[in-house]
C-alpha cells in the first residue's frame, strides 16, 4: 500500500514541481494570489478560480488520457461539449427538469463518443481523422439544436452545476475531482488500466492474447465523450446559456496538452490520470498568470507558448536523462542509460 503511494508520488513529482513553479509565478505577478476568503457563502480567491476554471480541461483530460493510452486521440471533445451544452439547454427550455437535461446531455456525449469509437475500432479509421469528422460536424449539430442562437435558461438546478457551490466549494471542482477519483479507481482497481495500456503498446499482441480490443477502444472513446459532455454542461450552466459556436472552442488542444504535460506518451501505453489532471491545473495556472499580469492581450499567446515550451523542455526525456546522469554521477555505481537504443548521439 505504502509502496503504491510512493510510486504514484514518484510518477507525479515532476508535475507537482512544475505546478508549484507556475503558482509561484502567479504569486510574483499578483501577491494576493494565495489568499482565500469565505465570502457570500463560497470560497473566494484566485487559487479557487484556478481549480474552478480548470474544470472543463480537467474533465476532458480524464477521457483524453484513456484515449491517448490506447494510442488514439480525440479531437472532437470541444464539439461534443457544445452538443451536450445545447442538449441540456434545449431540454430545460422545453420544461424538463435539470436531471433529465443532465441525463440527456450525458447520453448525447456518450453517443458521440461511441460513434468515434466505432469509427476507430470497427471501421479502423485513424483516430485523428475519425474524430476530425465530429469536430467539424459536431458544432453544426449543436447549432442545429440551438438554431444558431445562444440558448439561455434559468433552471436553478442546472445553473447550480456550473456556478453553484456545495459547502462553499464551487460545484465544478467537486465534479472533476470526483470523476477523476472514480475513473482512476475503476481503472486501477480492476484490470482495465493494464488492458488499455496493452492495447496502446501493441494492439496486435493484445488481440492475440485474447483482449477484446474493439470493445475496450469503443469504451474509452465513450468515456471521453461522457467527460466532454459533463464539461459541456458545466460550461453552459456557468453562463446560463448554451453557446454552440464558442463552447469548448479549441479546448481539445488544451486537453491534449494537459495529458502530455502530465507526462503521458502520445504513442500510447502507460498512463496516469492524476498526472494529467495536474497537467490541466498547470495549464489553468498559466492562463491565470496571463490574466493577472495585466499585459496587453496581444501578448497572451506568446507568453503561453513560451511557458509551455519551457515546461515541455524540462519534461523532455533527454533533459530528464541528463539530470539522471548528473545525479547518478555523484553515486559510486556506474551510471547506466535508462533507455535502450534511445540515447541521443552525442
Amino acid at each position, binding site marked *: 500500500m505504502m509502496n503504491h503511494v510512493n510510486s504514484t508520488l514518484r510518477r507525479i513529482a515532476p508535475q507537482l514541481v512544475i505546478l508549484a513553479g507556475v503558482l509561484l509565478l502567479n504569486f510574483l505577478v*499578483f501577491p*494576493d494570489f494565495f489568499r482565500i476568503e469565505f*465570502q*457570500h457563502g*463560497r470560497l*473566494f*480567491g*484566485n487559487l479557487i*478560480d484556478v481549480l474552478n*476554471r480548470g474544470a472543463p480541461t480537467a474533465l476532458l483530460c480524464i477521457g483524453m488520457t484513456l484515449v491517448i493510452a490506447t494510442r488514439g486521440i480525440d479531437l472532437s471533445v470541444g464539439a461534443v461539449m457544445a452538443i451536450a451544452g445545447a442538449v441540456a439547454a434545449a431540454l430545460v427550455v422545453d420544461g424538463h427538469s435539470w436531471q433529465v437535461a443532465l441525463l440527456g446531455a450525458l447520453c448525447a456525449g456518450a453517443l458521440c463518443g461511441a460513434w468515434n469509437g466505432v469509427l476507430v475500432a470497427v471501421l479502423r479509421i485513424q483516430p485523428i481523422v475519425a474524430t476530425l469528422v465530429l469536430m467539424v460536424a459536431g458544432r453544426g449539430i449543436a*447549432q442545429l439544436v440551438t*438554431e*444558431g*442562437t*445562444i440558448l*439561455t435558461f434559468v433552471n436553478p438546478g442546472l445553473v447550480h452545476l456550473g*456556478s453553484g457551490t456545495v459547502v462553499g466549494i464551487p460545484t465544478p471542482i467537486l465534479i472533476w475531482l470526483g470523476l477523476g477519483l472514480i475513473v482512476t479507481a475503476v481503472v486501477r482497481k480492476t484490470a482495465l488500466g493494464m488492458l488499455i495500456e496493452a492495447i496502446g503498446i501493441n494492439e496486435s499482441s493484445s488481440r492475440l492474447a485474447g483482449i477484446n480490443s474493439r470493445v475496450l477502444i469503443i469504451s474509452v472513446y465513450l468515456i471521453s465523450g461522457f467527460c466532454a459532455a459533463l464539461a459541456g454542461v458545466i*460550461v453552459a450552466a*456557468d*453562463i*446560463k*446559456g448554451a*453557446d454552440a*459556436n*464558442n*463552447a469548448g472552442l479549441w479546448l481539445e488542444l488544451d486537453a491534449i496538452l494537459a495529458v502530455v504535460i502530465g507526462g503521458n506518451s502520445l504513442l500510447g501505453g502507460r498512463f496516469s490520470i492524476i498526472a494529467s489532471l495536474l497537467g490541466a491545473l498547470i495549464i489553468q495556472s498559466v492562463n*491565470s498568470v496571463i*490574466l*493577472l499580469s*495585466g499585459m*496587453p*492581450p*496581444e501578448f*497572451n499567446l506568446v507568453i503561453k507558448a513560451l511557458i509551455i515550451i519551457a515546461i515541455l523542455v524540462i519534461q523532455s526525456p533527454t533533459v530528464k536523462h541528463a539530470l539522471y546522469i548528473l545525479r547518478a554521477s555523484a553515486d559510486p555505481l556506474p551510471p547506466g542509460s535508462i533507455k535502450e537504443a534511445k540515447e541521443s548521439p552525442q
Partner: protein
Amino acid sequence: ADLTIGFSQIGSESGWRAAETTVTKQEAEKRGINLKFADAQQKQENQIKAIRSFVAQGVDAILLAPVVATGWDNVLEEARDAEIPVILLDRTVDAPDDLYMTAVTSDLVHEGRVAGQWLVDETAGAKCDIVELQGTTGSSPAIDRKTGFEEAIAGHDNLTIVRSQTGDFTRSQGKVVMESFLKAVGGENICALYAHNDDMAVGAIQAIKEAGLKPGEDIKIVSIDSVPDIHLAMANGEANATIELTPNMAGPALDALEAYLADGTTPPKWIQTESKLYTLNDDNMAIYEMKKDLGY
C-alpha cells in the same frame, strides 16, 4: 425574372451574426429574391471562394459581409468584370470604391464613441476606474470600438481604463476575464465596465453577481450590439446602456439594389445605419420581447 443573389456571410460566431443571417433571409423572401447563402466559417479564404463560385454561377448580385477589410481587390475585380454588382454589409473594405456598389454599415468607431460619451455623461466628472473587455484580438470591431471609446474618454481625467483584456466576444470568456479583473483590481475599485459586445457583458454580469456585487449599481455596465439578453438584464437593472448595431443591413442594401436594377439609380457609396443608444430610460422589456425571436 426572379433575382438570384449570393450572400457571403462570415459565419455564425455570435448571436448578432445569426440574427443578421435571419433578417437577411427574411428580407430576401419578402422581396421574392432567390438567396444563395454561403457560410464562410469565419475564414476569409472561404468568402473569396464563395464569391468566385457565385461569379461562376452567374448570380445577379452579391451581398458580402467581409470578415476583414483587406484583401478583396482581386476577387471584386472578377465580379466587376462579370458585371455583377457587389454590396457590402456591416463593414467596408480597403478596396477602390468602384469595385463595389455600396456599403451598408454602421460606424464601429462611432459606436465606441457613443459608449464612451455615455460614460462621460453618466459619471459627470466623478472619478471612475474602468475595466474593458475587448473583442477577439485583431478583429476590427475590437480595434475600432476600443479606438472610439478611448477617443470619447480622452481629456476626461476622471476616467481611466485600469485593466483591458480580451474576452473573445464570448459569454464564458467574458465571465472568466471579469472574475480575474474583480480579483486583480478589487471589485470595490471598479466603477464601470465597458464590453465590446453584449455577450461578454452578460457573462461579466454573472461574475459580478457571484462576487457579491450589484451589476448596474456597484459597477456600471455599457456594451454594444443591443442583443435581447442585455435588454433583459437592463430591465432587471443589471446593465446600464447598450448601443444598437442593427442586424438589418440587408433591407437597405436590397432597397438600393432594386432601385438600381429598376432604373439605374446609383446609391451613395456608404449607407450608414443608426447607432442608437439604449439606456435604462427605454422600455427594455418591450425591446426584449420584440427582439427575442429574431434568431439572436
